[in-house]
């Protein structure tokens, strides 16, 4: 049985550290924390070390901390920090742990959050370490799916776009393996899910198929998870123009989908979802961003020993 004590003081580094029951426990906590307005974290300080900018993640954590009565300190760019003066990450962490009750870290190097956690005496939350992990984003994605679909088990999830470089996609496909999901992976051939990940899915007997067109595969989709295809990935600008049009979702296409389909996107979006889709009742990507606050409230609360239960 998972309990609150499993989370108190814990580091949140990689989704691989969380099993099915722990994930469900976290999502349940997010349900409770969504409406939580008591200053449970009054007097608590989160120290945000953002060695590269990420406005959304930072704002989402600041909002979560603020809504629970705590506050956030920190910097938002490596250039102005001690890193520019040649200080090691280990030293920065050892200094900052004295300033906060937990550390939020975003860093371009893979594995940096785990390293920070080794040196910190307070819990560390990974807010993105290079191409490696961004676990709270994955929790938000799962939470959104459960909220929008009213269940998490046995969903058919269609991933569309850049599946090769998309960190959010990598974490999410492996995590969905805990929930008996059926995955359809739609991407240009050179932006397929990496081979090692496909092998991992096979070994774990996760049901997945690959496709190169969106339209034929969305009829029974419960979730369509769209990601941005970046121009930088293409050597040929013409190929980019073709791909950008081929891997977008519009209202005509959505007529072929189930009425209850949830459309997710980690944002920011560019062309892959045109504004006409925004009014679709199940265009969930802005709600997804908002759920981020509830999920992060739950994480902050649990790590700092507040379960958010109704104590009345």
């Amino acid at each position, binding site marked *: 049985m998972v309990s609150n004590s499993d989370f108190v003081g814990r580091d949140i580094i990689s989704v691989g550290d969380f099993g099915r029951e722990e994930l469900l426990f976290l999502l349940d906590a997010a349900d409770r924390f969504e409406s939580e307005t008591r200053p449970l974290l009054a007097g608590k300080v989160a120290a945000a070390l953002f060695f590269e900018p990420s406005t959304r993640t930072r704002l989402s954590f600041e909002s979560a901390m603020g809504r629970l009565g705590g506050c956030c300190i920190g910097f938002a760019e490596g250039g102005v920090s001690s890193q520019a003066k040649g200080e*090691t990450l*280990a030293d920065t962490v050892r200094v900052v742990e004295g300033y906060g009750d937990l550390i939020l870290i975003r860093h371009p190097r*893979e*594995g*940096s959050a785990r390293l920070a956690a080794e040196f910190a005496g307070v819990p560390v939350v990974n807010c993105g370490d290079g191409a490696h*992990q961004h676990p709270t984003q994955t929790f938000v994605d799962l939470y959104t799916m459960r909220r929008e679909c009213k269940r998490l088990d046995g969903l058919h999830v269609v991933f569309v776009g850049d599946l090769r470089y998309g960190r959010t996609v990598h974490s999410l496909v492996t995590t969905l393996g805990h929930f008996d999901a059926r995955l359809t992976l739609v991407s240009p051939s050179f932006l397929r899910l990496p081979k090692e990940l496909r092998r991992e899915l096979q070994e774990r007997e996760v049901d997945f198929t690959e496709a190169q067109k969106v339209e034929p595969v969305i009829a029974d989709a419960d979730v369509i998870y769209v990601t941005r295809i970046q121009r930088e990935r293409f050597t040929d600008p013409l190929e980019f123009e073709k791909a950008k049009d081929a891997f977008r979702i519009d209202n005509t296409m959505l007529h072929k989908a189930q009425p209850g389909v949830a459309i997710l996107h980690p944002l920011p979006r560019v062309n892959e979802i045109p504004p006409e889709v925004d009014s679709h009742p199940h265009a969930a990507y802005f709600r997804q961003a908002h759920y981020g606050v509830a999920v992060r409230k739950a994480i902050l609360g649990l790590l700092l020993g507040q379960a958010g239960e109704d104590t009345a």
Partner: protein
Amino acid sequence: MSRQPTYKVSALTQGTVLDHLRARSALRALRVLRLPPDTTIMVGVNLPSKRHERKDLIKIEGYELTQEEAAKVALISPDATLSIIREYDVVQKTELTLPVTFRGLIRCVNPSCIVHEERVPGLFRVEGNDPVSVRCEYCETSFAEEFFEFL
């Protein structure tokens, strides 16, 4: 009576014998060990073996491998045996084994890994035995022995 071909390698006065190395791993092991250039070394490759079909063998005259060097050999050829010889006598014989986790010895294969920037020794978890493969505990990249770059 078996008619196994015999081979002759002269006995050591003192030094180290690595026996039961995986076939064709001896030269890799020697490259990794970087022994002093004037060391006398005898190497047998693809020798007949009772345990496995073939094995390699290394005899190093006048040099006793350190624990760290032995640990590196274990990553290339787990289950090899290491004997320390003094005055023609085996004074210590150990079976090499793969650790569950280990620090240092090799570099993480991922150029974006934090360990390269922080200059902390890597931390690895052994995932496979044949071929040996590990996972970096920081960036979680898995890679096999052929990609090991020894320190």
